[in-house]
């Protein structure tokens, strides 16, 4: 054994009893810092389409939860009394009204959006809390994601086209449902979920 090798060997063994692990406190500090970052970013930015970046299985899981929620809302809506219930039609109405009343933004202006999504009963492997960030043009024609440019597919109403959408809530609901669910056999729940996604992408 030569001197150099032993010298480095000695150094390698020095304090070698320190274990290879992360302390719970370190982990706690890291996750708290990450959560703070998410909260800071999501607290001041608008929500556009909170579901657009979620992978398909996760999207399905969210859709299931939303469907249950919307179905419950629809059931409640037919009750004779009580406070107003947020139905898909009402959402569509509010979305179009809010868009028409909003400030004029140049179609090509880049906007950064960060969304924070909570799922009450997240399935295994699905995060209960999900933060997403995207850059896109105001008209939604170009979205920058994961290092590449990605355009919206055909059939999605763009921001700039909101003004031409039907102003009547029932007509708007019918129009939106047709965009995503042309299949006449689709269930009402599926239509409601589709409406919700389409509204989110407006």
């Amino acid at each position, binding site marked *: 054994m030569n001197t150099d090798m032993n010298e480095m060997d*000695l150094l390698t063994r020095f304090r070698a*009893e*320190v274990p290879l692990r992360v302390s719970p406190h370190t982990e706690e*500090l*890291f996750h708290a810092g*990450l959560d703070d970052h998410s909260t800071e970013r999501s607290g001041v930015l608008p929500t556009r389409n909170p579901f657009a970046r979620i992978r398909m299985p996760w999207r399905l899981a969210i859709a299931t939860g939303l469907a249950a929620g919307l179905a419950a809302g629809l059931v409640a809506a037919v009750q004779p009394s009580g406070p107003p219930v947020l139905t898909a039609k009402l959402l569509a109405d509010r979305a179009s009204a809010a868009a028409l009343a909003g400030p004029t933004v140049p179609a090509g202006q880049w906007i950064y959006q960060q969304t924070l999504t909570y799922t009450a009963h997240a399935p295994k492997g699905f995060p209960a809390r999900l933060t997403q960030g995207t850059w896109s043009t105001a008209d939604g024609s170009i979205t920058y994601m994961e290092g590449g440019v990605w355009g919206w597919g055909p059939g999605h109403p763009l921001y700039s086209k909101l003004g031409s959408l039907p102003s009547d809530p029932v007509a708007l609901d019918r129009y939106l449902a047709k965009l995503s669910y042309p299949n006449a056999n689709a269930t009402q729940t599926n239509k409601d979920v589709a409406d919700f996604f389409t509204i989110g992408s407006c």
Partner: protein
Amino acid sequence: MTPHSRAHAEPDADADDATVIQLSRHEPEHFTVLFRRHAPHIQRYVVRRLGPDAADDIVAETFLLAFRQRNTYDPARADARPWLYGIATNLIGRHRRAEVRLYRALARTGADAVTEPFTDRVDDRVSAGHAGRQLAAALARLSAELRDTLLLVAWGDLSYEEIAVALGVPVGTVRSRLSRARSKLRRTLGDADPSALAEESRK
């Protein structure tokens, strides 16, 4: 949901570091994969230099700084270890005096506050032995840049090229620093037989 049950990191288990960092630009949760992958090694490195108390904050800060700088990460570098060790080493630099104090205390008394919490053997708590004391004295006498280079090799297990990336210096500088550090180490260790010292450190 506890931090330990954040299962959304799993889909990236096979992706290299650069891919994980790229994904985390739009979905910050992906960054937890990088933490799980490298934090144990970074923590051990920092603990060996500064002890467990200071290490918790430094390791967490290392990964949070990396997270904030993730948009500047070079995607051509598949392995993020040099980047992370570089950040950790910079943060350790704020605690140079504390690090040197620990080496000097060990050299003087034989008691090592760094390893105390991790050993059950009473003998080890009382004394690190002659080898450990001499080595601590040698490390205390090294300049910060020589010690950083030496310990990134010995404890960080980085190659010369990786250390160059970590410290932001040319590879030639790394070679030169390592050569000087080892020479100084040998001189401080004096006439002691390195084989005997290594054997003693195994006890």
